[in-house]
């Protein structure tokens, strides 16, 4: 199809959908008037039953923990896929040379950048850790904290440079971290079954409401997620940044990737 024909087709289809969309929007509950019974019920019963303050964490790690398990493995699939697709051609070897664009001057990293990164990096990681451990009481949790922790390691890249970063961050350790975190999460599901409870049933002592140690099993699941997400995102950044390197030798052909 020519681009014009295609856009005409799309326009016609969207115009055809318009009355339907208007009808649906007209009959949806008024914005801000009420919330669904499911959410209302959870708000009503979970603080007492699970001793946690953050309902979203309670849903993610307890009531609907299976969704989070799936989500965790979706992330694992995507990162494994990214690794497979990016490494396919360049293999697993790493280069410690930085990329050079012809015609661009090579600037040494300024003292200020190095210093800022050395200061901000640890602070960011501390903040990430705070977010992780406070999952059940304040906003945030393993996922958000994990991403922030991964960004912290990224700052090490900005501050220490590529070679230094590559020295610190080893790819198969990240694999182990990611897989281990995910494994811990599955284990949190399977272990209660040994005691005769249901998959992912919260069998641990629940702790006291609004306390850091509240939520029982949720805390371990949360740690697993944090570990997996932090390892996964660092791996993701690492593999992506690798793409901007110049390859050391002649590239092998794509055939070997099969």
């Amino acid at each position: 199809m020519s681009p014009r024909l295609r856009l005409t087709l799309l326009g016609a289809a969207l115009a055809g959908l318009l009355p339907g969309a208007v009808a649906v929007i007209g009959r949806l509950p008024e914005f801000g008037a009420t919330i669904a019974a499911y959410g209302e019920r959870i708000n009503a019963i979970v603080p007492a039953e699970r001793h946690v303050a953050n309902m979203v964490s309670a849903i993610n790690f307890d009531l609907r923990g299976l969704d989070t398990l799936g989500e965790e493995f979706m992330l694992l699939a995507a990162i494994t896929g990214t690794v497979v697709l990016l490494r396919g051609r360049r293999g697993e070897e790493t280069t410690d040379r930085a990329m050079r664009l012809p015609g661009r001057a090579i600037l040494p990293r300024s003292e200020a950048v190095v210093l800022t990164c050395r200061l901000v990096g640890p602070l960011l990681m501390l903040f990430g850790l705070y977010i992780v451990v406070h999952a059940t009481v304040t906003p945030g949790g393993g996922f958000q904290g994990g991403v922030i922790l991964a960004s912290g390691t990224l700052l090490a890249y900005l501050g220490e440079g590529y070679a230094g970063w590559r020295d610190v961050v080893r790819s198969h350790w990240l694999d182990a971290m990611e897989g281990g975190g995910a494994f811990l999460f599955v284990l949190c599901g399977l272990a209660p079954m040994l005691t005769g409870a249901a998959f992912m049933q919260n069998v641990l002592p629940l702790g006291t409401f609004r306390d850091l140690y509240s939520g029982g099993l949720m805390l371990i699941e949360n740690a697993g997620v944090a570990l997996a997400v932090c390892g996964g995102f660092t791996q993701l950044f690492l593999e992506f940044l690798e793409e901007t390197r110049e390859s050391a030798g002649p590239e092998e052909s794509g055939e070997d990737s099969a």
Partner: protein
Amino acid sequence: MSVLIPLLFLITAVSGTAIVLIRDPSRQIFAIAANGIVLTILFTALQAPDVALSELAVGGAAVPLLFLVALMAVRAGTADQESGGDGR
């Protein structure tokens, strides 16, 4: 609040449309990051701090970074090609 939230929804619509309309990827990155920030503010206003925090980490930082790196990789490839490097 009753003025702020509709306004934020409208800004979201505008910033999303901007991503579509800015066709140069190197400038689109800014629109993507801006959209991430706008969504973060909207989510905060909608009383969803958990979601806002993830959107800030993912949509405001991680995703624009991935776009940036992809763009750099493509640029490096283009430079290779121009200088007769290993690009095809």
